[in-house]
């Protein structure tokens, strides 16, 4: 389990915090979706958690041990997929994975198998300088899995990928969870977060605006109404009825010529808008 307790970070030391009072935990065998618009502070938190940024205030604990006191060997249990490109461009995809695998002192996954899984088998022996943006991203993702990490950090793993590859990558992420890894998933994509996360947190302006399971968020912030499509003469009409207005609902069902009924579940996107007053993908 990873625990993040009351973490603050001020880049310039001028009292203006990029993230403030961030507290959450990521259980082993679960996926934690970290959502927020650009500049919200998602990468800042990931970098503090992985030790790339020194902790200024607060605490990050891995199974109770502070990130401040972890030794080099601890990184055998960590996998990180960064949002920016960070591959050796003069080496091939396979060489990149093989080299990274050699850095670990724990059993590693066969690099060719991983390349197969992310659809890069054919391009394994091509230099990364000749890879497209999406290919590099898949390679970075594959690299983060090479040591079967107990703690997996994924910063925007599927942005800019075609739907078919994105599905393959989702499957791989779910496999990591099934294997018992604690997965910290940073993304703009509400859809991805909704599909994969056990818990989601909305980060906005450096603070957590809401945090719960996707279902609970939908229950609390969702519209809780039914959309009824009914026929009136030749025309089809539509009406939204709140779920707790039982009288109106039963009247509608008994009297009108109902064609369709939709339960109006809110998307995470809409919930985010309600919680923060801002569009996520702005």
């Amino acid at each position, binding site marked *: 389990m990873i625990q993040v307790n009351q973490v603050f970070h001020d880049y310039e030391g001028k009292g203006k915090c990029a993230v403030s009072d961030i507290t959450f935990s990521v259980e082993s065998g679960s996926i934690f979706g970290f959502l927020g618009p650009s500049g919200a502070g998602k990468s800042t938190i990931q970098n503090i958690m992985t030790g790339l940024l020194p902790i200024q205030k607060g605490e990050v604990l891995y199974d109770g041990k502070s990130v401040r006191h972890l030794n080099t060997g601890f990184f055998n249990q960590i996998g990180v997929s960064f949002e920016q490109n960070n*591959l050796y461009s*003069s080496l091939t995809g396979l060489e990149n994975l093989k080299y990274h695998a050699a850095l670990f002192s724990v059993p590693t996954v066969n690099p060719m198998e991983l390349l197969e899984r992310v659809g890069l088998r054919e391009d394994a022996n091509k230099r990364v300088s000749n890879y497209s943006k999406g290919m590099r991203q898949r390679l970075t993702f594959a690299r983060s899995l090479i040591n079967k990490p107990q703690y997996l950090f994924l910063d925007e793993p599927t942005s800019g990928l075609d739907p078919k590859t994105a599905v393959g990558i989702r499957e791989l992420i779910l496999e990591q969870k099934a294997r018992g890894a604690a997965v910290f998933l940073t993304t703009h994509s509400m859809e991805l977060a909704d599909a994969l996360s056990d818990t989601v947190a909305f980060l906005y302006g450096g603070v957590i605006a809401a945090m719960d399971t996707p279902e609970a968020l939908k229950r609390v912030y969702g519209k809780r109404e039914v959309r009824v499509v009914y026929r009136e003469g030749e025309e089809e009409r539509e009406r939204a009825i709140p779920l707790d207005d039982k009288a109106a609902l039963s009247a509608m069902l008994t009297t009108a010529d109902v064609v369709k009924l939709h339960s109006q579940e809110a998307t995470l996107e809409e919930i985010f808008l309600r919680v923060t007053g801002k569009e996520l993908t702005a």
Partner: protein
Amino acid sequence: MKSIFSTCAQDSKRLLTNALFWVLTATLVVIVLVVDLALPKELASGGVTPLTWNAPADAAFGTPALSEEALREAVRKGDAVGFLFGEDGLTIVHPGFSEKSLNIYVLELMRDGFTPVEVVSLDAQAKEIPLNLRLTPIFIAFEALMVGFILGGALMLAEKQDGTVRALRVSPFPVSSYIIAKTLLFSLIGTLYASLICVFTVGFSINWGLFLPLSFIGTAVFTMIGLAYTSPFRDMSGWFFSMIALLSINMLPVISYTSPAFTPFWMRLIPSYPMLMVYRAAMFGGSVDWVYTVVALGAWGIVSYLLARIFVARKHLKGAGV
């Protein structure tokens, strides 16, 4: 261990696509051609210092030596030619000059009214070192041994540019292994380059037992200084120009190598000084000041490793920020 050798292997692959690597390799070829074809083979008259002992007041040449023994020692090292004024007359002691070179001195002396009664060579091999070969240790020290400084730095900057340094920071790869891997690779390359320059200029018959370890240790020291020095830089521009300033300081011992009389104490603190002296002994014979050499190179080995440890850790790997 596995991680160190893998790093060596992948760094050497990365070198093959690095333009600076090919520039340095081409420079090596140019050096060999210049030494073999372009430089004069005559011994430069300024190559050795004239030293005198007991010189009469009207002998307007040379620098008075501190003692007769000091004079002989300087000559034995090949740094000086000595003029000893004794009861019997003037004796010239020289580090194995050819007759032609000696004649220049004798003629000069006779014009001043001194006739030598005896000429003594203090070099058992009695071999004159042509100027072009005498300069070879300089080329080796400032080309071959510098591969680690320049290319090690170039690889580090590429790691920053590629962002791969971030991936290294979240991997279980200790700072010490990072330094050892780079130093090992470049020490091997530096030794190979030094040997190539030597074989194609001075030839095979040198003291390899001295030459090879010196080349390995010398490149290692400069590589580690280079790793420490490059750590705070983000890109090539500032790095390249300030590097030239640093390398210029490191080249100062060339002055003492060609005019041994000018060897102030601080000169002996610059790492390239002991290297030049040992190269000369390895390639042309002569004595090595073992105590000084071992202390100087040992101290630089330790200091450069510590500098690399501190700077690579704080400014390149762990704790270097994002």
